[in-house]
């Protein structure tokens, strides 16, 4: 099997969904299945105005790249993309983009889902929300830890 192409990035710049989608779809005739996930800042019915994402520079990039490579060893994938934004964001902004291409949809869904679960629990990133109630660090969810356990 050929090695999968990986594209991972941690950036303060707004994520370009179309560019990510184009890169995944460019793999035209080889892959049959593309799955892309976008995570957006939720307004939570007015409770959230902005969101700030802190990271551990250097380590965050490296762990994200390692997770993408790890997922590419678990399923036969052609391309793996994982972009994460850091810094200050508004409601509706894209926080994270994860996408994979594979020959069949089951593998593509599993791989994208796995990469998100691992990313959520292993990449040193922290969310703080700002709203009318002031600012607050987001608490880790047990559900995310359980989701990640499936793949460990």
């Amino acid at each position, binding site marked *: 099997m050929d090695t999968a192409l990986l594209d991972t990035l941690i950036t303060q710049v707004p994520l370009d969904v179309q560019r990510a989608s184009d890169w995944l779809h460019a793999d035209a005739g080889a892959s049959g299945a593309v799955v892309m996930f976008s*995570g957006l800042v939720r307004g939570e019915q007015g409770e959230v105005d902005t969101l700030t*994402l*802190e*990271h*551990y520079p*250097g*380590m965050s990039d*490296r*762990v994200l790249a390692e997770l993408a490579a790890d997922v590419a060893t678990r399923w036969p994938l052609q391309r793996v993309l994982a972009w*994460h934004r850091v810094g200050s964001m508004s409601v509706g902004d894209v*926080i*994270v983009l994860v996408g994979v291409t594979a020959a069949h949809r089951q593998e593509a869904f599993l791989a994208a889902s796995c990469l*998100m679960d691992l*990313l*959520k*629990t*292993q*990449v*040193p*990133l*922290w*969310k*703080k929300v700002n709203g009318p109630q002031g600012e607050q*660090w*987001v*608490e*880790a969810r047990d559900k*995310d*830890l359980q989701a990640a356990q499936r793949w460990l």
Partner: protein
Amino acid sequence: MKISLLYFARFRQCLGVDQEIIDTAAGSTVADIIDSLAARGGIWQELFAGDASVMAAINEQMATLASAVQDGDTLALFPPVTGG
């Protein structure tokens, strides 16, 4: 031996410190260092005592409470991650 400590997110903000250098005994583990921080009392105790949820990385690699630190290492302490 000397260890660089880094604090992130809620820890950094609550402590008002993002890094410091500490002296610690040879053979110290992550748990030993966290205990020594808790012993400072006040907010330090609140964040680091007992069963507090603390994640640790040594030289940018995830570590456990039992991991040993070496002279010159950088130990980062942070709350459970919440990206994605």
